[in-house]
């Protein structure tokens, strides 16, 4: 314990060097910008800015890139809340209640709770990273294909909380998402599936293209229609800051989201997107008023946003403790470390303590910086909503198109996003929920691949999927998520005077 504390002091002595403070600040600033820009996620943004780290000391390079990383995770929520435009895949969940809050004039509190939640999640997960990091990393390594498959099945079970009035329509939306996930080259065999003769589709259907199409573009179709019918109302902003009551009400969701996000983030392959979906589902399933979700429930913003940021931190675990990049973002970080002459390995802690502890300390610094940077911006961002809709909506489309284009540098993605915009519009009109499509698209690929890998290992015996304790637990949890809330309700009812 005392030793960790000493290391941390050493880390702070590095992170608080003026030059490193400057890098942390620059990283956070650029990261926030990248996060606000739809399409360009943290991985893409970091890769774009790698040239900046040439000739810097390894510690400074890592601090700069990590700043971009969590700045981008932070910034992604802004456009989701204000414009229903998910800045990156993980903020899709934030749109569900965040945008509804904005529509009701509560954009300020939504942005505030996203910033505060991210701050608490970021700070807590650095503490986790320091103290339970190494044992957690070994737990995460136990996730083989069978466990991954179980995790994905568990993920699918959360659909029951995303589906609106009709479960069957939720199922249709999920299957549609899973179908989109099968588009592209099938990795184990190299065979193209469902590319309809279009070579560009081999790369697969990118989540962000689907998210922007389904959520943002369709939202603008809806708004145009309301405009034509004369029913579109200018969003009013009632208050910028969050009330103490809202904060205390969301605190539980923030803590739960943090724990969940950190664990999921550390598991190789499971993206932060999954973490935010899990958190949303958890909050809704065990809320006393689940019917408020999807209509501007602040916990529906606080939980997923915290989970998202904690997952970003959790994802660093396998890289720092074992030298394994377990996600696209950490793979970029891995490459950057190699570039500045550091070989990530399980011995990084002994060989280059200045990098690890400098990074850990810089995360504390970065979190505070982000909060200072973002809270004052809330007022500015909220003012975006007062731009007349006839200009705001076209501008959103134009900016969204930059994001979509930058995913694969392909105009085909623009066409796909437009078509999905129409699909999303029709789905809304006929009351099909949109979020399950994204969930299906996120989980589909990993679900199929991990099932196949597991069966390759077992030589075709499906028993392998249910063998390990982790997998069994996850399957049980999946069942609980579906039937749990009704059980809970029955329990509450049987105890009179208790809710």
């Amino acid at each position: 314990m005392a030793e960790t504390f000493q290391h941390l002091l050493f880390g702070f002595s590095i992170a608080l060097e003026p030059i490193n403070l400057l890098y942390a600040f620059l990283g956070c600033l650029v990261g926030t910008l990248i996060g606000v820009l739809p399409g360009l996620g943290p991985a893409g943004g970091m890769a774009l800015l790698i040239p900046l780290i040439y000739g810097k000391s390894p510690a400074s390079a890592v601090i700069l890139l990590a700043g971009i990383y969590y700045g981008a995770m932070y910034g992604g929520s802004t456009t989701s809340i204000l414009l229903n435009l998910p800045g990156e895949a993980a903020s899709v969940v934030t749109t569900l209640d965040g945008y509804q809050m904005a529509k009701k004039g509560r954009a300020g509190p939504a942005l505030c709770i996203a910033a505060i939640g991210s701050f608490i999640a970021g700070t807590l997960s650095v503490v986790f990273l320091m103290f339970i990091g190494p044992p957690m990393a070994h737990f995460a390594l136990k996730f083989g294909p069978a466990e991954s498959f179980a995790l994905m099945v568990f993920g699918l079970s959360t659909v029951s909380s995303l589906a609106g009035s009709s479960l069957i329509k939720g199922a249709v939306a999920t299957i549609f998402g899973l179908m989109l996930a099968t588009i592209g080259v099938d990795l184990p065999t190299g065979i193209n599936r469902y590319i309809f003769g279009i070579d560009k589709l081999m790369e697969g259907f990118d989540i962000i293209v689907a998210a922007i199409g389904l959520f943002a573009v369709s939202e603008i179709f809806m708004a145009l229609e309301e405009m034509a019918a004369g029913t579109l109302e200018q969003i009013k902003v009632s208050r910028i800051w969050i009330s103490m009551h809202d904060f205390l009400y969301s605190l539980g969701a923030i803590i739960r989201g943090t724990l969940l996000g950190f664990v999921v983030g550390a598991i190789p392959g499971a993206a932060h997107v999954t973490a935010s979906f899990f958190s949303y589902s958890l909050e809704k399933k065990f809320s006393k008023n689940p019917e408020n979700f999807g209509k501007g429930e602040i916990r529906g913003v606080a939980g997923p946003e915290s989970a998202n940021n904690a997952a970003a931190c959790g994802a660093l675990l396998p890289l720092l403790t074992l030298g394994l990049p377990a996600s696209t973002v950490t793979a970029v970080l891995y490459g950057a470390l190699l570039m500045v002459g550091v070989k990530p390995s399980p011995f990084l802690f002994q060989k280059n303590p200045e990098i690890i502890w400098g990074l850990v300390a810089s995360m504390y610094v970065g979190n505070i910086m982000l909060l200072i940077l973002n809270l004052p911006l809330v007022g500015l961002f909220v003012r975006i909503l007062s731009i007349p809709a006839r200009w705001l909506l076209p501008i959103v489309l134009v900016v969204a198109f930059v994001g979509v284009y930058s995913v694969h540098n392909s105009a085909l993605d623009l066409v796909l996003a437009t078509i999905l915009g129409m699909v999303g519009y029709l789905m809304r009109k006929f009351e099909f929920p949109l979020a399950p499509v994204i969930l299906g698209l996120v989980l589909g690929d990993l679900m199929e691949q991990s099932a196949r890998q597991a069966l390759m290992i077992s030589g075709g015996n499906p028993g392998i999927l249910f063998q390990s304790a982790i997998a069994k637990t996850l399957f049980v949890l999946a069942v609980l998520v579906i039937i749990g809330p009704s059980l809970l309700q029955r329990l509450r009812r049987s105890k009179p005077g208790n809710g």
Partner: protein
Amino acid sequence: MKLGNRVWGIILCALGVYYLIEGVNLPPAAIGDPLGPLVFPSILGSSMVACGVYLAIRPGPRTDQAVLSRRTFPQVLILFALLLLYAAAIPWMGYLFSTTIFLFSTAFLMGERSWAKGIAISAVFSAGIFFLFIRVLTIPLPLGLLETFGFK
């Protein structure tokens, strides 16, 4: 236009069947890959058909409200077409010009009536965004006509 769940059931069935047919030529399981690339899509296609059949048989309560209005839906279609044109124009015309034209026409569709104001805002905004993304953040957006004019 009224479209009940029954009609959607049939559409979804068709989608499922089409998906299954499109996947029928995928190779089945092979040695070392017991599931193969076909099993997962087959499950998806069949489940979609099942959901479609369910919706067609038990469509639930029917809403009398017209969902797609004859007055507003054409506008949505116009924007849809504009977006497709914009997507097609970006590669050859370049981001700067196509964005200016798109912003202008969409704002007009949405009710802007002043030509001068429309052109000014579109041009200034496109130039600003072009500078920020292409020059500062170095996102490789197509230059299109600008390149033909010798701009780099």
